[in-house]
């Protein structure tokens, strides 16, 4: 076991982690621990763009952007945070340009902008061109540019280090962050990182669904680590299902495809979105389009022998336009489906895409231990966090923005905090939890397999807590998850070695997914209304009287060791905008 000491430790090297690292490395001795090489992070998969009211191509301002964000989130957004997001968006994009990001350009050489769902001029009057982009590779360019600047700033990375536990020490009755425990993939060695400030930037948790746009490695490790230590998770029932994933595979085809003029069609070739959203049609908000697709499928108008998908039709668009604006996603269709998008429609279905919920923070990225109390020394930013700027449904292009704005803020706040304090003493025997978890898995002779449990988990999540939910389906999921958590105790692995033991890590990741799936399902069961990404067929309307509030889920352990989830609620911050019905 090795012990390291840093002012600031960042967990994760995606967009949020690297944006934070660029700030904190300038101000404090910083280590970035990441389970993937930084450039492998899933920020690189983002396609469509990053929102900012630059007004380069038409009139726009940050106040309109704030409004759209609040409305898009079905009013569950904390409006003070949304205002910061929209205001700081402009500098966030300009900073990236100065760092070298190769944005697409307008004829006069400024950053080009395009339309995206839910972004409008003057509070919903008409679509506005607000998304700054680099073809359909915006996330790739952000990830590369941030990594390049980390190289420039000499950021210190610990690559293929898996953070498996958060350390908390009680000092004079206050629980403070004292560091993290990490597992080094190459050697199997355990490392303790004692740090004055820790920032979680470990990304999403989409892998508990089967059909998802998320990478195999998005297993909610950060959320699970803090949750296990008694800290709450906020709004976990809100998950975004993106309408256009490649059929069965879930690989994303950007909303930009519909922004460029793509049309959704059912088996009769009908443009069905005209029925569900007469004004915005195919560009209505993501939750609306995903539900419409499933309605078509349920009512027997789906395509294919099993009627289980619909088509994204780009065939009427000029090939030059597809090549220039959508080169990557058209290549995905060719590679994975053998379909030529110039001439054939692409089979798609909704895909689990984005976690609106996560570790609750304030606008400085400080993690909360209840509705108001900050955990000294603990920060979070990016998809792992819930500020909450996305509320019940995130607008496209607002996450690449979120990781830059709040990644930067958390990086500055953490490094500055680190200057004002001393190290907090580590708890006694800091590696205890991780050592016993690994020992247990390595020596277990149980007869359950990771792959089987994961598959059953993903199947139950897809069937029961996806686009449509009811009390009945959610309860089915809760029971199934409980069963899987029991069976997980008998999981064994085949690789008993120390070197690059990905068998072991997949088992640990599955444990995290099971914990978080349970939180999601239990939170969803209690929210008896429909709002944004959370749609209850048994409660199809939004209920502001009872549910205009954030869910806060806590892990409780009884005296006899039994675990349970306690739900509490937190008020939504409303400043300028009163809730209205959300129409597109």
């Amino acid at each position: 076991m090795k012990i390291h000491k840093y002012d600031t430790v960042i967990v994760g090297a995606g967009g949020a982690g690297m944006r934070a690292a660029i700030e904190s490395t300038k101000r404090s001795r910083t280590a970035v621990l990441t389970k993937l090489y930084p450039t492998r992070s899933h920020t690189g998969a983002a396609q469509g763009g990053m929102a900012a009211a630059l007004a380069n191509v038409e009139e726009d301002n940050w106040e309109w952007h704030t409004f759209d964000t609040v409305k898009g989130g079905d009013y569950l957004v904390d409006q003070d945070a949304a205002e910061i997001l929209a205001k700081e968006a402009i500098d966030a994009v300009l900073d990236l340009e100065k760092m070298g990001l190769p944005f697409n350009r307008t004829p006069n050489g400024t950053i080009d902008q395009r339309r995206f769902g839910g972004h409008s001029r003057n509070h919903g009057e008409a679509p506005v061109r607000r998304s700054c982009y680099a073809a359909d590779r915006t996330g790739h360019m952000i990830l590369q540019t941030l990594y390049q600047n980390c190289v420039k700033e000499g950021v210190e990375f610990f690559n293929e280090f898996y953070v498996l536990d958060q350390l908390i020490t009680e000092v004079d009755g206050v629980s403070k962050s004292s560091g993290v425990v990490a597992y080094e993939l190459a050697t199997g060695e355990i490392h303790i990182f004692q740090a004055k400030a820790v920032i979680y930037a470990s990304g999403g948790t989409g892998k508990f669904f089967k059909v998802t746009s998320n990478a195999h490695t998005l297993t909610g490790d950060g959320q699970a680590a803090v949750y296990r230590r008694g800290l709450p998770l906020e709004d976990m029932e809100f998950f975004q299902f993106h309408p256009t994933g490649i059929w069965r595979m879930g690989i994303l085809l950007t909303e930009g495809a519909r922004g460029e003029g793509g049309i959704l069609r059912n088996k009769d070739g009908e443009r069905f979105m005209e029925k569900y959203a007469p004004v915005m049609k195919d560009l209505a908000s993501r939750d609306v389009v995903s539900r419409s697709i499933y309605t078509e499928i349920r009512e027997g108008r789906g395509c294919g022998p099993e009627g289980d998908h619909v088509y994204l039709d780009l065939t009427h668009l000029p090939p030059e336009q597809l090549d220039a604006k959508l080169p990557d996603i058209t290549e995905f269709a060719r590679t994975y489906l053998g379909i030529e998008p110039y001439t054939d429609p692409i089979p798609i279905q909704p895909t689990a895409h984005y976690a609106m919920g996560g570790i609750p923070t304030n606008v400085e990225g400080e993690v909360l231990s209840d509705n108001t109390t900050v955990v000294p020394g603990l920060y979070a930013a990016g998809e792992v966090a819930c500020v909450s700027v996305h509320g019940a449904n995130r607008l496209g292009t607002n996450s690449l923005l979120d990781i830059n704005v709040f990644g930067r803020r958390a990086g500055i706040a953490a490094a500055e905090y680190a200057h004002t304090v001393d190290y907090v003493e580590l708890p006694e025997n800091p590696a205890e939890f991780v050592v016993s978890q690994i020992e247990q898995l390595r020596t277990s002779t149980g007869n359950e397999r990771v792959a089987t449990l994961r598959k059953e988990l993903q199947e139950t999540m897809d069937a029961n807590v996806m686009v449509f939910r009811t009390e009945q389906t959610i309860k089915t999921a809760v029971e199934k998850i409980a069963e899987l958590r029991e069976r997980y105790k008998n999981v064994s692995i085949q690789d008993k070695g120390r070197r690059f033991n990905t068998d072991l890590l997949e088992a640990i990741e599955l444990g995290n997914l099971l914990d978080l799936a349970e939180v999601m399902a239990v939170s969803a069961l209690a929210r008896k209304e429909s709002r944004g990404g959370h749609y209850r067929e048994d409660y199809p309307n939004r209920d502001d009287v009872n549910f205009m509030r954030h869910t806060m889920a806590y892990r409780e352990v009884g005296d006899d060791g039994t675990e349970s989830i306690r739900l509490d609620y937190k008020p939504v911050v409303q400043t300028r905008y009163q809730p209205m019905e959300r129409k597109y």
Partner: protein
Amino acid sequence: MATPVLDKVEAEAAASDHLITVTFRIRRFNPEVSADAVWEDFQLEIDPKERVLDGLHKIKWDIDGTLTFRRSCAHGICGSDAMRINGKNRLACKTLIKDINPAKPITVEPIKGLTVLKDLVVDMDPFFQAYRDVMPFLITKDTNEPTRERLQSAEDRERFDDTTKCILCAACTSSCPVFWNDGQYFGPAAIVNAHRFIFDSRDEAGEQRLEILNDRDGVWRCRTTFNCTDACPRGIEVTKAIQEVKRALITRRF
């Protein structure tokens, strides 16, 4: 519209869920077990429209959990899973079984020229070191930063578009015979990333980067074998980029 939809429905019906038996012949190496690498065969039932990565997962998840490889995104954008498949460098997640003759055993080996650590996992550090050595970041000399973005014409932006696509997968560098023989050579990927800045109209350190690549281990080692271009899963014209850097070194114009 109606006709193509119908055609597709039938095509899908015909092709769906048709499983075939394939043999994966994998180069195994685990120094915790043995100092020698060996070939091991695995037979599995798989839909030929699935990826080689899906096959590797089936083996790892259902047959042998010790099989070790890197992967994350599973659709060709993170650069984790470059490997030698039937003797050619490719991404396992971007190679479909049906496209590589599943009638014969499919051979899978680690990429060459980098130290193998376990099974298909190689030591990527020298690769990333070469990348860092070319100063892969925008360098400008302005003393007062502009308040807005720097301007760049669409043509100037297009000039280096191809090399911005790189995902640092190392398929090119590890397919290069010069790199196999001499690990000191920067290798194509580092040159591609230098090209990305040398030809960016906003950058002002082109001369410095060219000097680095003028080195003994720099671009002149390239023998234009085109292996790199063939290997690149992003379709980057790697050899052309190297040639452009060579030309810039001669003319000092870029």
